């Protein structure tokens, strides 16, 4: 098998597989933790037990999701050294230290307060517990900030200079706030919110469809409809911004995503391919369905704006074409469908369908919300494929080629660990889904009351704690 001898390809598959798996979990961690902050705040403000019960119910799912996210995340960090040592050497000056910041600022905060959030309900006051939940949510979003800043630096490496293939940092802030950073960070963070809101809304829809705890889940469902108005629209806006950022900083990537070969002559607009079959050997599309001028409009806001074509780049510098082209279209299509679902839900709300007596009859709408769960994850994964495969053949755009970034490892070592990761992660995914299903079937505990129990437990614990301290 030729595949198992190509060490570069194996390391790329290794990274792609572990990254595609890992990212499924932190996105929900980030969004769901913000939701937990919301329901806990609502509980403290209104004193209604319903919100406390929401916090307890969704936290179970959160903890399960968080556990898989953490264990699959640690290998990501070490993989840069084990499999991509030449890249680590070249980019360590900035890339490594952003990972260090991510761990020390974000992961540590999450880890320390997660203990209090999960096990501290009866050990700390409600106010302190709320603070812990806020810190977990803050840590999650902060980690997204640092890792996206690091990834954006690979797309637009600035803030220093390359001396003999090694990046020497001169301006840390310029490197962190590199040209791609703003759009990269906001687009991904909104993706976390969007996926989470469709997960929460979709699960609520599942209960509504079954008529289980209808009043309880109508609260979370309607909250997610409201959140969807803001998030789906903002996500389209940042998507547009991210596209223009690629147009400016990574023209070959943009041309690849759009299968755009010829730079449009002055005075003529560049057409947008709805669908096409780009062929690198032909240096043209085998077939294409296009709309005139739209690519110029999308990239430059002008009907005749110049968009550089793929032919301007040497074949060796052209990105892969089919995967980014179709991934991009799938992502955009799903984004539009999700925005449509938001409009549909609002319309149903306006017609007075979102009330306990009638919501169960909105079967199609509720099924659509359930379908939105896998679709939103798929949009995120295809977006990442566009971002990372579109950057090829570079690992650091324009400076270090991917094949130059790998460790000199024998192919057997990489094959061995790849098989290990595939086996373990497949098992993890199956178990995660199994346990998540069990949590959902069990449902929320609607007789759980925080106040009295909390007080008595806290007193007992204080008493116990005092007894033990004197013993030390």
């Amino acid at each position, binding site marked *: 098998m030729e595949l198992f001898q190509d060490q570069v390809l194996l390391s790329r598959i290794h990274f792609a597989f572990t990254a595609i798996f890992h990212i499924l979990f932190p996105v929900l961690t980030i969004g769901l933790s913000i939701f937990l902050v919301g329901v806990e705040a609502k509980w403290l403000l209104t004193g209604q037990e319903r919100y406390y019960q929401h916090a307890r119910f969704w936290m179970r799912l959160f*903890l*399960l999701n968080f*556990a898989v996210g*953490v*264990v699959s995340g*640690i*290998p990501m*960090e*070490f993989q*840069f*050294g*084990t*499999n991509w*040592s*030449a890249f*680590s*050497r070249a*980019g*360590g*000056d*900035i*890339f*490594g*230290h952003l*990972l*260090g*910041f991510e*761990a*020390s600022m974000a992961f*540590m905060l999450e*880890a*320390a*307060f997660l*203990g*209090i959030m*999960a*096990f*501290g309900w*009866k*050990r*700390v006051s409600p106010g302190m517990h709320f603070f812990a939940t806020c810190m977990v949510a803050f840590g999650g979003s902060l980690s997204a900030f640092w890792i996206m800043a690091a990834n954006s630096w690979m797309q637009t490496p600035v803030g220093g200079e390359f001396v003999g293939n090694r990046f020497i*940092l001169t*301006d*840390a802030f310029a490197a962190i706030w590199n040209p791609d950073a703003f759009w990269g960070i906001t687009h991904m963070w909104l993706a976390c919110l969007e996926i989470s809101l469709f997960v929460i809304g979709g699960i609520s829809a599942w209960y509504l469809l079954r008529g289980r705890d209808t009043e309880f889940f109508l609260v979370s469902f309607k909250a997610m409809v409201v959140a969807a108005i803001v998030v789906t629209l903002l996500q389209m806006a940042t998507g547009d911004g991210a596209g223009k950022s690629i147009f400016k900083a990574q023209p070959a990537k943009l041309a690849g995503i759009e299968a755009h070969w010829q730079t449009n002559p002055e005075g003529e607009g560049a057409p947008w391919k709805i669908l096409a079959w780009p062929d690198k050997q032909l240096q043209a599309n085998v077939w294409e369905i296009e709309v005139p001028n739209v690519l110029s409009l999308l990239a430059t806001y002008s009907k005749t704006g110049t968009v550089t074509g793929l032919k301007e780049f040497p074949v060796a510098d052209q990105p892969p074409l089919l995967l980014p082209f179709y991934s991009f279209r799938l992502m955009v299509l799903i984004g539009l469908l999700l925005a449509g679902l938001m409009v549909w839900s609002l319309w149903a709300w306006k017609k007075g369908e979102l009330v306990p007596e009638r919501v169960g009859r909105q079967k199609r709408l509720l099924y659509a919300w359930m379908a939105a769960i896998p679709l939103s994850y798929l949009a995120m994964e295809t977006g990442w494929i566009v971002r990372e495969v579109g950057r090829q053949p570079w690992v650091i755009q324009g400076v270090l080629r991917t094949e130059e970034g790998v*460790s*000199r*490892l*024998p192919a057997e*070592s990489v094959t*061995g*660990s790849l098989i290990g990761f595939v086996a*373990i992660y497949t098992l*993890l995914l199956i178990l995660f889904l199994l*346990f998540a299903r069990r*949590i959902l079937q069990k449902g929320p*505990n609607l007789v759980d009351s925080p106040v009295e129990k909390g007080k008595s*437990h806290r007193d007992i614990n204080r008493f116990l704690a005092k007894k*033990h301290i004197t*013993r*030390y």
Partner: protein
Amino acid sequence: MDAINANLPTIWLFLVGFFLLYYVVTDGADLGVGMLTLVTRNSEEKKVMMDSIHSIWHGNQTWIVILGGMLFGAFPLFYSIVLSALYIPFIVMLFGFIFRGVAFEFYDNAEWKPVWLVSFGVGSLLATLGQGFALGGLLGGISVQSDSFAGHPDDWLNGYSAIAAAGVVAGYIMLGAAYLVARTEGPLQERSFRLASAAGFATALISAVIYFATSLLHPSMAGKWLFRGESVWPSLFLYFFLFLTLGAFAMYFRSLLRKRQLAPLVWNWLVVIFSFTGLSIGLYPAMIPSVGAAALTVEEVAASPTTLRFMLVVTLILLPIILTYTSYSYWIFRGKITRDEGYENR
């Protein structure tokens, strides 16, 4: 300011050393507790042992993530060479972390629970073995050519690294047993006292062998024992830390005999800190020791001054904050562990 700028790599060596030692004394104990569940027969006791670290293991483990990131940023060359050279031990450690890490949450949700107790124990053992062989592989020497690992993927597997791995296993079990002494009571605590003594003897013995073997392997360390260096200071420091280590061991055993609750764990921390510092002094200034060819020094593997300075400022602001909230979370969950409360009652 000039003094700081001139010594940035050395300052970072101390910081990275701090992260490493903090990780070892905290998560080392967690992994030790995990390995001890493998030799515990009673399932209920196993669960109490798991619960004793439930609220803190994750924070403790995060220190190795910080260590990885900071090594990557401050010593990119070290990070890239060592991780690619020790590929197999590190992958084994990562697999071990996965089995250990999911065990807690999966146990809570599973119907068939014993399998997650096994996952917890075996994962802890795998992670410890991975770390032990990685340490042995590094201290045993790595062959480097033009800034890349140039050896064979099984270079780390030899008698020396096997001794180092045994030392790490024994040391973590010692930490785990001392931790259980502090956090449990009754029969489990009684047994932990005995295990802490046994593991203490094993660790002391293996540490002596590691010191001896490392000196044989690296003439620069042997030279320090024999006062053959240009300066007498490294030799004096080496002997000083040797005596501190011996003293800490003595106090550790004394505190166990007197059935003290927290003292064995504290003396155990000092054993780890002193013995590791002594070994580092023996090898300094080599950061990647090498057999035959010249070792790579701290200065050679460091990042650029701009990076080191920026990271230093941020880290010095962050560390007190991290230590404050981490201490707070330890404080919340202080006291003896009794029985699992379950998610609904937490």
